């Protein structure tokens, strides 16, 4: 398997994703510089977290105009797997590869914390190794993670099972009290209709090693490999 991690000016979690793929799940991985403008020859592309272009203007708003982005759109249209984590998710909504938008957290503050999320569906290339409705711990660290989307699109997303992760508590309760940032329906992660583009605010790469306290996130990466192998 060949993973690519895109590096924008201001990407911070690029080396974290690289580390997990290379050293934890032992797969081949390469960095992709933001101005890369050739056909992407990879099995899975990761847009990492961070503050691309300082998040100036709006999180992800400038990164979407990077030279590599049309290449990623092309890659996704051909069925390639794309994962956007945190800032990567913001870039994916800005570039309309995913519906909706991410606005400032309801409390207007940056939040860094462990966070329980529920895996709503395991019928995706990214979650197939989780149980349906399994509650897992995926840390969050963002200032603009409040997911918003218009009602019609939301209904469409529900119908197509595009909602993949929802914020919850340890027992899996999904309500206002278990919603850290104000996201509609406690949405933490979604995919496109074709289910090959995945965006999520929590950081699976931060909970992929026992030494860091939790390995719940590792199965996101393992699911991808599982999917690619069985394809």
């Amino acid at each position, binding site marked *: 398997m060949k993973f690519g991690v895109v590096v924008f000016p201001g990407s911070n979690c690029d080396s974290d994703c690289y580390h997990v793929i290379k050293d934890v799940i032992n797969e081949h991985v390469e960095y992709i510089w933001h101005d890369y403008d050739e056909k992407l020859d990879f099995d899975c592309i990761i847009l990492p977290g961070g503050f691309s272009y*300082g998040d100036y203007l709006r999180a992800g708003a400038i990164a979407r105009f990077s030279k590599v982005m049309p290449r990623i759109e092309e890659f996704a249209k051909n069925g390639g797997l794309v994962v956007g984590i945190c800032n990567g998710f913001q870039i994916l909504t800005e570039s309309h590869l995913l519906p909706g938008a991410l606005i400032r957290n309801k409390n207007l503050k940056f*939040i860094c914390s462990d966070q329980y999320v529920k895996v709503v569906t395991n019928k995706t290339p990214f979650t197939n190794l989780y149980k349906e409705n399994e509650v897992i711990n995926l*840390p969050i660290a963002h200032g603009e993670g409040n997911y918003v989307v218009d009602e019609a699109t939301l209904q469409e997303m529900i119908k197509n099972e595009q909602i993949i992760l929802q914020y919850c508590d340890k027992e899996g309760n999904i309500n206002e009290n278990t919603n850290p940032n104000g996201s509609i329906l406690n949405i933490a992660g979604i995919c496109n209709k074709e289910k090959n583009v995945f965006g999520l605010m929590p950081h699976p790469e931060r909970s992929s090693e026992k030494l860091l306290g939790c390995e719940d996130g590792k199965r996101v990466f393992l699911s991808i490999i599982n999917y690619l192998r069985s394809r």
Partner: protein
Amino acid sequence: MKKNLYEEVGLTYEEYKMITEILGREPNELELNLFGVMWSEHCGYKNSKAFLKQLPTKGEHILQGPGENAGIVDIGDGYAVCFKVESHNHPSAVEPYEGAATGVGGIIRDIFTMGARPIALLDSLKFGTLEDSRTKYLFEGVVSGIAGYGNCVGIPTVGGETTFDPIYKNNILVNVMCVGIMKKDKIFKGVAQGVGNSVFYVGHTTGRDGMGGATFASADLTQESEEKRSAVQVGDPFMEKLLLEACLELFQTDAVVGIQDMGAAGLTSSTCETAARAGTGIEIDVALVPKREEGMNPIEVMLSESQERMLVIVKKEKEEEVYKIFEKWGLHAVKIGRVTDDGMLRVLDNGKVVAEVPAKALAHAPAYVRETKEPEVVKISQQFDIYSLPQPQDLNEVILKMISNPNLASKEYIYRQYDYMVRTDTVIRPGHDASLLRVKGIKKGIAVTVDSNGRYCYLNPYEGVQLVLAESYRNIVAVGAKPLAITDGLNFGNPHYPEIYYQFVKTIEGLKVACEYFGTPVTGGNVSFYNQSEEGPIYPTPVIGMVGVIEDVEKATDISFKEDGDIIAIIGKTFDDIGASEYLSYYHGIVSGRVPKLDLKRHKETCDKVLECINQGLFKSVHDISDGGFIIALLESALKGQKGAEVKINTSLREDFYLFSETPGRFLVTFKEEDLSKIREILNDIEVEIVGKVVNRFEISGQINEKKLKLNLNEVERRYQEAIPCALKS
């Protein structure tokens, strides 16, 4: 020349005369400004350096001591740790967001100029109390400033401390420590070596922000300070991130001879200091400097403290490498001058010489030793009789009140706003004694802590700083690491007052003795004087940043209770050390008394033996006992582990004194019952006082002598978590 121009740049008449002697002529306006800023307290350390020299700075692990941008210690396996603390007090008191943000930015640059990759930030913050509305504004501003900068640049803020005391109301303290990791044979220094080599300006453009910031930081805060807002720099963390990556990439080439951050006094300090260290001269042309504003004159360019800029000395034939890398990162890289052999800092404006002064004279400000006088409080406080304090009836109520004290309560409201996990190295997170970072690829880990206690130091500057150092030492040991070295952030009032200077001198004396005893040399730091307003000076507040190394990061311990049935014990003997304590100050409203008695020898022995027990895997949790005493440590360990405790304590001390005593050299530990004999064997004559056991019920129950202890931990947790957010809302 106007008669009082030297005063305007912050120099005395005597200093002005010295300058005319050095130059053999009258300085022009630009030259006078260069001296003004370099001989300011902030850059020149003129009132402190005579004493700083006394501090121990050498040791087997020390690769770089004071005098460079940051200190470096060897941690073995080919790696070294680079670290330093720096204050940004005055800017933060006037403009909290940008003041704190640029404080973070500045110290990060000090670390990566040495060739290290920054991996952690810590902060020591001091504010007035939260009833005051301006304090709320300053507090929120400082915390979001640290978050805004640190999060964006992608360096985790892994620890720190925050204290509230009315003494800091008008002069808050913001001390930031940065820690970096590097290969020990890849150290870069701020030296302008090699005559003919090129002097490069890289990074952000130069603007009028931060004009005279160093001079502003070298005077008391007054009403007029508000108007000096323009002396506060404006940070751009995105630019810093690019500069960081570009510099680290540049270090992989062999183009760099020397490098220095343009921090306080910007281009002036970086040019004259790099030349002075190398014994060379530097010639630059300010017309070549990239500017963000039009019509900037040479004084403005030389004094600007615009952020995210570096001076790089490049091998003459390697200039192309610099252009290539900085173009890739979209940053300016301009050759503005060259290294010369005449020892002069020569400033040109479009080829015309506008200033010419000896670099060493600029870089080496005169040193002063001022008058000292012991403050009355040092003697008076010794007389205070703690047994005159009324004995509280209901201890449970007192405990609940103490845990709601913002100084002891949870700081999660603060650290939740910091990304403390980015880079995926944070093994022990904020909220424990020290934070612990792994180093990918090796087994070792790096423990870091930052500590202070202004009240101790106010009541007894000499013993106070030793108590602070001892606390740092325990914090590092508590996670299972061996302390290696420290950086010190020394915050004081105006040194022209003999009482203040006494505090400073005694602090250095106390620190010297304790550092030597503990084997933790000082690798650098920062002195911040003039922390006082019209209402008076702050407490003398030395901040200690300590770094330690753990051989196997998997063996680390934290504070949380682990399993039902584990034995809870206090290592070390508890005395009636209530003088200067948080209990005396918060519950009884008294700042007085003898500071806790520190037996350096006993303290070191205790710590070494605790470390031995941790290395052998005998302790399941370890928590340093300090502010608020044993009972606060017990509650914190219970809450972190979401467990309760049954306690039974027999003591000859007054019960409230036992619970809240701050006797140094103690740890709250838990272990399996069957390990007790092994633990006693290692600890030998160090006391192991068994006080109870861990239980599954989420409460503290039991007794101390005949008095009942019963605390519902849900209630405790609510108060502990909500103390700071509630104080902000009220």
